[in-house]
């Protein structure tokens, strides 16, 4: 599904060169649940942006679904993002004046054609994250956890091949974080490929594969032996609260 070879990224600010990625090799198979971890400044977010076709690498090769993407035009990348990728951001990045339903419909606006059952698909996606009762609420009228669930529904609605999540629990309390991770674990159980960036070891341990990045290099890449089940933790938390 995802094949990176020798990916480098250098930022240029005037004459100052800042190398961020120093040659990343990575292979992500369909159905994997990968966490990219590292301290801040390690280049993990840059790596996610490159994986998500939001940014271009300075060097190296990136094949997505067999397509070499480094030579594609801006418009072609936009089309691929729309077709094959879904994004969940730390700050949710919902349109504040649009309802949950309209936010989830957003990818269809740029899909080239607007499916006749778009509304139905959007409702289903919101149902999948447990928000069927929040269709017409605006982000300001929902909790952070609910906003992030809307964002997941938006990432899901066009049935992407990979979901990228950039610190999805970074702005959430513990309980909402567990809810979000348990939704992601559920999606993984359904066979979806998920790539997540986090600096939170607890979150990393809920994924199936853990990639550690330090100073632009992969320092370790291993499966998570016994992934924590977020739903169980959530129940423990609820019981403790009683």
């Amino acid at each position, binding site marked *: 599904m995802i094949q990176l070879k020798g990916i480098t990224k250098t930022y240029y600010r005037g004459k100052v060169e800042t190398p961020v990625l120093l040659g990343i090799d990575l292979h992500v198979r369909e159905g994997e649940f990968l966490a990219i971890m590292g301290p801040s400044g390690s280049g993990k977010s840059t790596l996610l942006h490159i994986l998500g076709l939001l940014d271009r690498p300075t060097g190296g090769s990136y094949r997505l679904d067999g397509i070499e993407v480094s030579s594609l035009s801006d418009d072609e990348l936009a*089309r691929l993002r729309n077709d094959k990728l879904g994004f969940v951001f730390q700050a949710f990045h919902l349109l504040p004046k*649009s309802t949950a339903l309209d936010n989830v419909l957003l990818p269809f606006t740029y899909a080239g054609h607007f499916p006749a059952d778009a509304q139905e698909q959007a409702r289903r996606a919101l149902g999948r994250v447990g928000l069927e009762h929040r269709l017409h609420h605006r982000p300001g009228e929902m909790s952070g956890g609910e906003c992030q669930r809307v964002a997941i529904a938006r990432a899901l609605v066009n049935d992407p091949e990979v979901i990228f999540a950039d610190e999805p629990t970074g702005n959430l309390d513990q309980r909402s974080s567990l809810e979000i991770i348990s939704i992601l674990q559920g999606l993984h159980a359904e066979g979806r490929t998920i790539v997540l960036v986090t600096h939170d070891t607890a979150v990393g341990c809920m994924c199936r594969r853990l990639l550690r990045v330090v100073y632009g290099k992969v320092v370790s890449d291993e499966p998570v032996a016994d992934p924590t089940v977020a739903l169980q933790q959530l129940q423990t938390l609820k019981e403790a609260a009683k």
Partner: protein
Amino acid sequence: MSLAWRLLKTAVISLWAFRSYAALMMIGLIIGIASLTVIHQIGQGAQQAVSARMTSMGFGADAFYISSGGGRLGVRRGMKRAVTLTPADADAISRLDGVTHVVPHKNVARTQVSAGGNNTNTRVRGATPGWAAARNWAVLMGRFVTRTDIGQSARVAVLGTTVVRELFGEADPMGKRIRIGRTPFIVIGVLESKGSSGWRDRDDLILVPLSTATKRLSRDDKISGMRVTMTDASRVGEIKAEVTNVLRENHSLGPGVPDDFLIITPDELMKLLTRQSRSLVAMLTFVSAVSLFVSGVVIMNIMLVAVSERAYEIGVRRAVGARRRDILYQILMESLMVAAAGGVCGLFLGLLLSYLATWLLAIPTAFSPTGFLWALGFSAGVGLLFGVAPAKKAAGLNPVEALR
């Protein structure tokens, strides 16, 4: 729900979200378009007023006017114009093929007029029986000047209503004696009131037979001007040329000597009368075009700020698959909608203001289709033109940086 509908909805939602910005953007445009509309309404009103006045003067397309003294229409020809036309000229012109009527008149200098103990100072004009018909001017009481009056150079006078009021108040003037200068006259009729045109009271006037004016009230037998009516309007040019020949010959003007008379055709008069209002409209249009340009710059600046504030929204759209041009069209669509809304508001404000101008200030206005089109065209143009820079800025944003 179609894609176009969604794009429109997107624009409306964004504009509503940024409504305080949208209002700021529209203010300049509303003022500019409103003033443009008012200017064109007033211009159109002036045009119609001129047409109406020319009609009331009996100046149809099948007539022209010959004035004594040379020069050019619209250029001030000196306070003392040479009076060069004669009754013989009028006779010669009336014999030309295609000429149906010649109505000469003579202006006598403003004269002191008295009746009983009252006196006033008024314009005295010598006229022929055709004069009233040629000017669409009816007699309210009594009768007009007749051929007999002309033959006898009779001392009879037809008064304008202002003169009647000054000399007789509410009393009946018919058959009464008045003095024009030192010469006694009998009042034989009263003209209907025409009201004032601009600063001039058109009813402040006395008409006497043309021959009386030339023989008894002034020392020469010249006439001031004449109206020439033709069988049909298409021959105006041809007859104008013939009249020129006849008059130059009668006045013995050699080659190279300029005309000592002036032929004014309805077209030329119309042009002269509307020239001022036209140049005023053109100048004010320019001024409001400048204000529209300024409002365009304001729109552009506000949108540039708004684009910076909306960077993350644009980043989100790009992340979910919007191409650069999708963002470009979205921002252009928004600026176009703001401009169109501002244009429509400005148009209605302008219509309201010109209605008020007519109602409160008695300035004639009329609906101007060109003003309407200018307003819509201008606002759409401003929206598109000044939306380009913000739209390009938005489309050029790097999604990663926009999302940061």
